[in-house]
């Protein structure tokens, strides 16, 4: 799946965050967006993941040459992991299974995919634990596992390691590197070294626009 961002602008309370921003994400792999606080990285991800609408301009998704309809089927081919993951007050496993259950997936397949992903996120031993009692780093790992079980074609990660320790950061980076094939991962980070470790394409967001490869 390919994403084309065309001349989008977005302002909050008169403060322009994105201005005439355009880019085409047409390769699989990890695209890392860097930029200072308030440069519009999170806003761009929220718009690209269809969580928000731009004030002007638009985005379009393509499969080959075919433009995809902006409907629930399209929304279910991608997902965004927010900086504060939004953990449900249920078990770790139920959190991981949420995206699959709402898609009506068979129990056995839910079990298989969640077990596999919780192992990758090193949360297999905590599958019955109440997820809200996990540490910040574990919650972040769960958020990424919960997103990956639905096998999205496009995964947006908004500052996935911003407020967690080194050990958790390392696990998350390993997950990203392992899952980069077969999907487009568009993530934001402040950490230059991390960006260089992960990026297949490193982009800079300046003055509300993607200024090109960094």
């Amino acid at each position: 799946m390919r994403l084309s961002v065309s001349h989008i602008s977005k302002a909050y309370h008169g403060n322009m965050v994105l201005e005439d921003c355009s880019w085409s994400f047409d390769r699989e792999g990890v695209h890392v967006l860097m930029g200072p606080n308030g440069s519009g990285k999170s806003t761009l991800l929220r718009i690209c993941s269809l969580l928000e609408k731009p004030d002007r301009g638009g985005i379009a998704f393509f499969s080959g040459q075919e433009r995809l309809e902006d409907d629930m089927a399209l929304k279910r081919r991608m997902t965004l992991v927010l900086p504060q993951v939004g953990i449900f007050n249920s078990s770790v496993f139920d959190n991981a299974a949420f995206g699959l259950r709402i898609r009506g997936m068979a129990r056995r397949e839910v079990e298989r995919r969640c077990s596999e992903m919780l192992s990758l996120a090193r949360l297999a031993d905590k599958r019955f634990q109440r997820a809200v009692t996990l540490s910040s780093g574990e919650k972040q790992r769960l958020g990424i596992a919960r997103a990956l079980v639905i096998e999205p074609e496009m995964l947006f990660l908004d500052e996935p390691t911003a407020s967690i320790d080194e050990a958790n950061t390392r696990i998350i980076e390993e997950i990203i590197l392992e899952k980069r094939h077969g999907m487009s991962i568009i993530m934001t980070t402040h950490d230059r070294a991390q960006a260089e470790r992960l990026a297949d394409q490193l982009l800079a967001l300046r003055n509300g626009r993607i200024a090109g490869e960094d």
Partner: protein
Amino acid sequence: MRDIIESLSRALFLILNLDGELRDIILLSLRVSGSALLVASAAGLPVAVIMAFGRFPLRGLFVNILNTFMGLPPVVVGLFAYLLLSRSGPLGFLALLYTPTAMIIAQAILALPIVASLSHSALVSVDPIITQAATTLGATPFQVSMAVIREARYGIMSGIMAAFGRVMAEVGAILIVGGNIAGYTRVMTTTIALETDRGNFTLALALGIILLALSMMITLVLNGIRKKERVEPQR
């Protein structure tokens, strides 16, 4: 003082022997209040959901009215239900006055705003990040609402238990519409009022002890629910 101790010991004897009259009164109380709670929950939860997720004019005003109705005086509800159900009232043809059904209706009117208002509070206090997380995972608006309701479940259960406590302890409404008929509409609170008037403290005290025990149980359940609801701090 000796009279009180004597009545108390006789009351304990009644409880321990599970006196037939006592048992019937307790069971009727539980049946009436339990049914009223079911009706109030069945009607109150959809109201709470509409108030929390619906976008319509004067929603804030409706929420305020709901909150105000939480403190409805039971005697006023009793009077209102009496006027509705009395022979000359709009529902008089149903001949429900002075029946347990009339008591259920009155208690359901009392419980409904409590269930609806506390459930509404629980729903709107769910962190908006939950809505966003469910949306980004591909949930439809209905599935998002269900996820939010699930997050608010402990708050909703607290509301239902609080309403149960309120209706179990009220006397004004059911006295007016139930008539306190022995063996038919006489429940714990109305019996306590009547027996105290008569100077028969034994039965009144026995029922008072049971009512207190029930209140304590409700409080324990509420505390248990709140403990589950509490989110432990992040490490």
